[in-house]
């Protein structure tokens, strides 16, 4: 793995994380916010893979598997919360919850 590859891969991970963060801040729909959390988790996992590939060690992929488990549990609980709120919030708007809509 050349240094240029390393730069491209790490830049990709950083770009994905920033896009997810921007979406999390900008979007108000709960579904989109959860999607952006997924994007950020995935970017962090990719950074682990890149580091593991750089040193030729399996620990990067091991950490990726643990991140996968975390993401699965998070999505299960988050989507259950969204489903429970979907009857009471119009458009699942996060601002609505702050104003006491729930």
């Amino acid at each position, binding site marked *: *793995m*050349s240094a*240029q*590859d390393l730069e*491209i*891969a790490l*830049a*990709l991970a950083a*770009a*994905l994380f920033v*896009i*997810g963060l921007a*979406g999390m801040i*900008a*979007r108000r*729909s709960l*579904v*989109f916010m*959860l*999607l*952006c959390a*997924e*994007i950020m988790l*995935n970017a962090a996992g*990719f950074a682990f*893979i890149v580091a*593991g*590939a*750089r*040193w*030729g*060690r*399996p*620990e*990067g*992929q*091991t950490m*990726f*598997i*643990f991140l*996968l*488990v*975390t*993401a*699965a*549990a*998070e*999505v*299960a*609980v988050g*989507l*259950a*919360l*969204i*489903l*429970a*709120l*979907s009857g009471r919030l119009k*458009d*699942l708007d996060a601002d609505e919850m702050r104003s006491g809509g729930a």
Partner: protein
Amino acid sequence: MNALLAIAALVAVASTMAVVLQRRAVHALLYLIVSFFALAVAMLSLGAAFAAALEVVVYAGAILVLFVFVVMMIGSEGPVPGPKAWIGPACLSVVLLGELAYAFFAAPGLLAPAGSPTAAVSPKEVGLALFGPYAVCVEIAAFLLLSGLVGAYHIGRRDPGSRPGGGKT
């Protein structure tokens, strides 16, 4: 320089931007699946084949399908997306397919960088690490999955006796 990685990175950034910019959640999910495919190709080009397979199977195959189920169950999305919604994701996927075909048939050396000091990390090494020094972490991950399952069930159940939303402790 690894052209496979660079093109996959471009596709990943483009499709992830499209995810954030979509108005409807179903369209965003389509682009997010393409984004995960692109990341899987990038991982493959880095020699992490096991993680690439997991990315497709678990992220695109399980987690996003869960998202699609819930978006459809909420039903605030209006009608099912028409054929026009598929054009953008399909074009990006064709780029990835071309990359994979090129890597498998024309330049197999790209996927397993021979000669470099950091060759591909095989699934066997990952498994040995996972169930050797990190076995305790695997058990803790199992606890986490179980608690996620119980939590999702508890939040999602609807029995008339409890308060709405299952807010019982």
